[in-house]
């Protein structure tokens, strides 16, 4: 099988590491070679963060380059716009509708673009936009936005739901499992 690429983008602190771990474990359980690349350290402090997940029969480079991602999962609208060039022609963009102003916008040095999702759709991109934050709060905490988006993206991939449930059980501490399962279900039912 040709190598497939998934990017998870967002703002440092939004939980992209857990999301990549869940997807990574789903793929490993299906017998693929998997590589997941994360960024730690300074850029995690509220900066733009990106995690790469690649799978197939043979995966060499752990990073994804422009025009390569089959799916981009974005936790925030501006980050969806930033990383759009990494999406492959015909790829899918799954994004939360959440907006977080970056410091240059807060300071007035830059402007947060209007109508990001419409402008991306106008580029001919398949966009699935979900209010993941509200759904996460329904599940019990804003922090579960990442798992809501996993629920959304699970429908864009060919694996059985039980495989995702097993990965959740592997990656989430027991005391938060029920909450995260609820968040996942809300994401899966969304659209």
């Amino acid at each position, binding site marked *: 099988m040709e190598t497939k690429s998934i990017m998870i983008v967002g703002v440092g602190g939004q939980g992209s590491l857990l999301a990549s771990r869940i997807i990574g474990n789903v793929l490993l359980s299906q017998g693929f070679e998997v590589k997941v690349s994360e960024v730690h*350290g*300074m850029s995690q*402090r*509220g900066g733009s963060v990106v995690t790469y997940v690649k799978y197939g029969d043979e995966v060499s480079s*752990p*990073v994804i380059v422009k025009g390569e991602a089959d799916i981009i999962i974005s936790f925030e609208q501006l980050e969806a*716009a930033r990383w759009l060039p990494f999406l492959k022609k015909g790829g899918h963009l799954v994004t939360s509708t959440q907006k977080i102003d*970056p410091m240059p916008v807060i300071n007035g040095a830059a402007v947060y673009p209007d109508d990001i999702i419409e*402008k991306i759709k106008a*580029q001919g991109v398949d966009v699935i936009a979900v209010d993941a934050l509200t759904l996460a709060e329904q599940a019990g905490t804003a922090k579960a936005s990442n798992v809501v988006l996993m629920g959304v993206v699970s429908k864009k991939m060919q694996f059985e739901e039980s495989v995702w449930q097993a990965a959740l059980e592997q990656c989430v501490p027991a005391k938060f499992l029920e909450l995260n399962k609820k968040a996942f279900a809300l994401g899966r039912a969304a659209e």
Partner: protein
Amino acid sequence: MKKLMLGNEAFARGLYEAGCRIASSYPGTPSTEITEEVAKYDEVYAEWAPNEKVAMEVALGASIAGARSFCAMKHVGLNVAADPLYTAGYTGVTAGMVIAVADDPGMHSSQNEQDSRHHAIASKVMMIEPSDSAECKEFAKAAFDLSEKFDTPVIVRMSTRVAHSQSAVELCEREEKELIPYTKNAQKFVMMPGNAIRRHPEVEQRLVDIREYAETSPLNRVEYNDTKIGVIAAGISYQYAREALGNKASYLKLGIVNPLPVEIIKDFCSKCETVYVIEQLDDIIETHCKKIGLNVHGKDTFSLLGEISQSIVREKILGETAEFAEFPESVPVRPPVMCAGCPHRGLFYCLSKLGVTVSGDIGCYTLGATAPLCAMDTTICMGASISGLHGFNKARGAESEKKSVAVIGDSTFMHSGMTGLVNIAYNASNTTVIILDNSITGMTGHQQNPTTGKNLKGDPAAAVNLEELCKAIGIKSVRVVDPYHMAETEAVIKEELAKDEPSVIISRRPCALLKYVKHNPPLRCDHDKCVGCKQCLKIGCPAISVHDKKMTIDHTQCVGCGICTEMCKLGAIVK
């Protein structure tokens, strides 16, 4: 069983399986998780040392005592540990000693992108370089065997993408290694001139022996496909080349990067039409090839700067570029910022307001340099805030002493800041030093340090009392402030700057991300009172923004620290 593991986690597994008994490190991105992970194995004693020099000396001492030992650091940490490294190269080891050094091409979280291979060459110590998680584990184990076989410490060079990528790893059992009996051997381990002079020829002979081993070692391997293009690469660069070129090229993948072999490289080059050396940062393999008379491409094709990727290899060698869509407008950058509730924010707002010169250091608080606070003049390396400001003040005199401060975190102060403070007391400059004590090593992801009262395993440990330490060094004026109280903090800074003596201010408040720190409910803005004056934006809190001329607080980020309420004269920020 196959498990998805970070390169660093797999490295730790390799240490465990190889029977490593002692590990001592100082945290540094992207090396930190190796030591955190190895600490989870009860069979391995693991600790955070105050700095990399101490860590490496602990590892060498343990090796001399007969235990397989380990230390880890980031690339710039190896500069700090260079002193023991260069002489450990002379003494060699008793039990195996492995050093992990993690380079950061692209500077994801570093102040420079130096290439650690230079240290291996200069210290004449063997260096190997893995390219994925499975190799991290295998190379860690091989490093111990090679260390014992050739009587040398062995450096394993990591890089950000290898350290922080997960791939599948096959787990094995631990092979227990008993302590090697200790026998005094002063000629080998007392490096005074008379002994060292006899060790040097052995160091040179060892390099010859390892080079010969490298010619046939399984760590270096050749893959022949189409031979029009030949690629010589090590570590992550091999993975980029392999992804870009697949079977359109042949590969010489070097696992041993110091010393480099001669014959297998010559043989590979003789079988390929055009040979490219693909290496991140400096032209070390390329220079070696040219020195042995081979015509290869290297930095004529690839940059000395930053990271390589599969797209760069594809473009430079095959002339292929990818198609992609772009967002039709400019996208504002999102630089890292101090977190909402960060205790450093209040302190830096005071420094910004006072307009003082700020001699900075390495840690989360380096973000005080960014807009809107912009309260930092220099950042060089661990500890340089204090010693650098002493030099600055000696150069510019009393005028400068009244309007400058050094800022340094608790962990960085223990690492190499306190010697600078000794210099201030001893050589008398009226310098003001602010220790930002957030009770943790923050930027690298919450590691304990000698001031926190806990060790690496989280067990209670002796805690350095910063006030008493500074007094013992000879600083008479030591003050403690809470940076959540900005008015008081500002007043204390002014008082200490005015004094004709050196002083230390400890700005104390635990990191807001620590699990034990209780958060207040998020604050909100009373829009009837808010006039949109934007005073609250001056503290640079990521939870605060102004929309339609009214301030809003992002309830998902706000931890209710309340420093914004000091900014609002109208009392519009409420619980």
